């Protein structure tokens, strides 16, 4: 099923991953920063664009694959992860990226996250978290803080936000990080590390919505608040401490790697390849698939 891809011996520049499509995002949207960081990370990784499959759901953020030269798939709301996993299983030699919004990933698509985690399938999932529904014009999101007034919660929301970091750590994810559109080199480094991680890598990115987001969520405010986990002396091998720090989601803006499993489980895609190799050794002829049903 997998076909070995040609090794292209070439140095890549961020601009090699930039497509001709002009982003529809509002000027100043945090998603521009995520895109820039992604170009840089991909250049550093050095895989040619045609070996990359970039899958997203629906939302402002989910437009991102179209702005890259990779094979893009802008799918349906909340379902990027299952589709990305199908791609990876069908062709494990591809570099598979997945991206979307907070609503896409933790509301409608929330049920899929646990399963991508438990398969430790080798793909990188970037959630562009703006605590709001951007595309549909400013409704409450699963990561909106309690009490937030939006067009669908005009009297203030009555529920607590999901904590994406704790959620994914809680499921036992092997790579969990957070970045911000206020620190592009830092974000590029985190994305690169996530892509290099052998397994499911989750990156939450604080990517503010300038149009519907609150003032205190914007780039300038984020820049003032952000604290690198490294500067706190956090050891990314320490899962419990990672969870403790992740509890501060919504209060503190920590950036960097919360948890990186030093001994992750084998990836689902690798196990698929091994099973195919083992079971496929006999190479049966598909034209004889019914032979075993003959009653003798």
């Amino acid at each position, binding site marked *: 099923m997998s076909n070995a891809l040609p090794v292209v011996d070439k140095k890549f520049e961020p601009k090699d991953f930039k497509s001709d499509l002009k982003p529809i995002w509002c000027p100043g949207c945090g998603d521009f920063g995520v895109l820039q960081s992604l170009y840089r990370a991909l250049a550093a990784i050095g895989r040619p664009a045609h070996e990359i499959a970039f899958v997203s759901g629906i939302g402002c953020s989910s437009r991102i694959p179209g702005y890259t030269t990779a*094979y893009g*798939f802008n799918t349906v709301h909340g379902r990027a992860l*299952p589709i990305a996993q*199908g791609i990876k299983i069908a062709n494990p030699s591809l570099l598979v990226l997945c991206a979307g919004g907070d609503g896409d990933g933790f509301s409608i698509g929330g049920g899929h996250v646990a399963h991508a985690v438990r398969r430790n399938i080798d793909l990188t999932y970037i959630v562009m978290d703006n605590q709001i529904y951007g595309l549909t014009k400013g409704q409450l999101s699963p990561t909106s803080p309690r009490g937030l007034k939006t067009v669908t919660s005009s009297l203030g929301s009555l529920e607590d936000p999901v904590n994406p970091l704790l959620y994914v750590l809680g499921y036992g994810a092997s790579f969990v990080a957070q970045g911000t559109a206020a620190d592009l080199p830092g974000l590029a480094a985190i994305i690169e590390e996530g892509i290099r991680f052998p397994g499911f890598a989750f990156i939450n990115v604080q990517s503010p919505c300038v149009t519907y987001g609150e003032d205190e969520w914007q780039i300038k405010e984020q820049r003032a608040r952000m604290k690198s986990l490294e500067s706190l002396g956090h050891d990314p091998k320490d899962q419990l401490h990672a969870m403790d720090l992740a509890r501060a989601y919504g209060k503190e803006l920590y950036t960097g790697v919360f948890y990186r499993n030093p001994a992750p489980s084998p990836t689902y895609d690798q196990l698929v390849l091994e099973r195919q190799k083992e079971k496929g050794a006999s190479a049966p002829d598909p*034209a004889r698939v*019914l032979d075993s049903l003959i009653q003798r």
Partner: protein
Amino acid sequence: MLDNLVIGMAGSGGDGIVSAGETLVAAAATEGYYGIMTKSFGSQIRGGESSCRVRISSGPVLNPGGTLDVAVALNWPDFLKFGAELPVGGNTVVIYEAKSGVTADKIPIVGVTPAEVVAVPFGELAKKMGGTDKAKNTVVLGLLAGWFDVARETLIKNVAKKLAKKGPEVVAAAERAFNAGVAYAAEHPLKSDMRMAPPKDGRGTKILTDGNDMCAAAAIFAGCRFFGGYPITPSTEVMQYLSREIWKYGGAVLQAEDEIAGVGAAVGASFAGVKSMTATSGPGMSLKTEMIGLASIAELPLVVVNVQRGGPSTGMPTKPEQADLFQACFSAHGDGPRPVLAPTTVADTFGMTVEAFNIAEEYQTPVILLSDQEIGQRKEACTPVDTAKYKVVERLRPTPAELEDYTRFRFTDTGVSPVSQPGMLGGNYLAAGIEHNEKGDPTASGAMHGKMNDKRHKKLVPLVHRRDLFHVEGDPAAPLALISWGSTAGVCREALAIARRRGISAKLLVPYLLFPVAEEVYHEFFIGVKAGLVVELSHQGQLYRLLRMYVDVPRGIRSMCRSGAAPYLPEDVVRELRAATLGLQGETAETRQPQE
């Protein structure tokens, strides 16, 4: 001598009546008989009542048969629970457990006098000869082999083989129980000779399988190398088969977290260039509809199998119904086209599954294969499919020249444009659920949306001219017509033959392609037709309604429809056909519409 025998048996869960049926149909298949076995259970997870129907024939069989030739009741309450599924008639030989204390003239079957009623001490023979009450089903097999002369040698061998693991004592006991049944039959001959004629073909000439396994095997043949799905009765065997077999062919199965993820992964795998499938039943089908729309607009091949059960909602998970036709044709949001195909037997499930993949690949479209519980889960002994007869189609991929300036959704005469896949240098494009231009770039242009809808529909036009996807049988000039699909078509095929023997001349149209509706095919079929029936298991008469929507249906064509669970019997259709002939003789048959 008989060349066709329909046996219905029922007992409580521990009686092993279904296992006896399986052993019987397998032995008959080994000896070269054709056959069908269906099973039916009460609602308990384990235990409770269970029944099966075994039909053995020297010629091909297309349905589980009508009224029983032989009814076996290990206890009356359980037998009676199956009602219309195990119909007893004036020609039926009824065999029942003597211990029940009921005398032969007092059996609880009302309204009919069976040809013969025999009380057999199954439990007593089992205990005496087999050493345990559990050997009852083996006594039953011996008795059937004795009276009806079917597969005696193979049966005893298979019973022994099945128990070999349990040691020689258990095998010897089972053999004694079996022989006790045979001896009982010899000592108590039936009034009429009901021995089966020997099979026309020799040993080892039949395959034995169910529709779900057949579908899965055909998928492998057709090149399917990815399956994503979520368990749901009565479709799960498709995934179970593939999860054992597909790896050998370099494929993979993903048991997803839900139906959406299952079909989503299949869409992803197809985007990556691998032929993919998902299988489900009604409720799961509802969850998959958004993804079918995505495959439609992204023009990705995808096969979605729906093994229909009684609905709506959880409905009747282990019973057949044909009421998901509207859903298959019309659950699209927007004008998302989707071919809908339906097999009619286990045997033709092979060809229809291969066809589903071929159409999906050829036209880069989702295809829905509508099987049903009966086809999916019944065991059928049939002649092996000649796989050499089937071609396997691959999607149109771009040439190196086309990759120089690749345009994913290029407008072409056929509407089909070459599709690249990740890994192909130069083929990079954006697939999307959002409307796009030829390049694949998102667009908000209404004009472009119109053109793309044209493209997506134009691709499928050749399908309605595929005469091979429609079978016309019977007398082509007859003014009396039947139309039927799926498992019910097999009932109508037999009804047509019975009617012919009784001097009623009719013709039958079986559409394997349900959607898009091939208007011309129906119009041609209706030439000269004055009366007839559209026969299906759905309360609303969905095929009848669908035809009325697209086709000028003659006034004399009525809907013969009812809810599923118990399939139609051939006699039911013959009766209605006879009534329809009255219409031909000028006695205005009232045009009965489906019940609203």
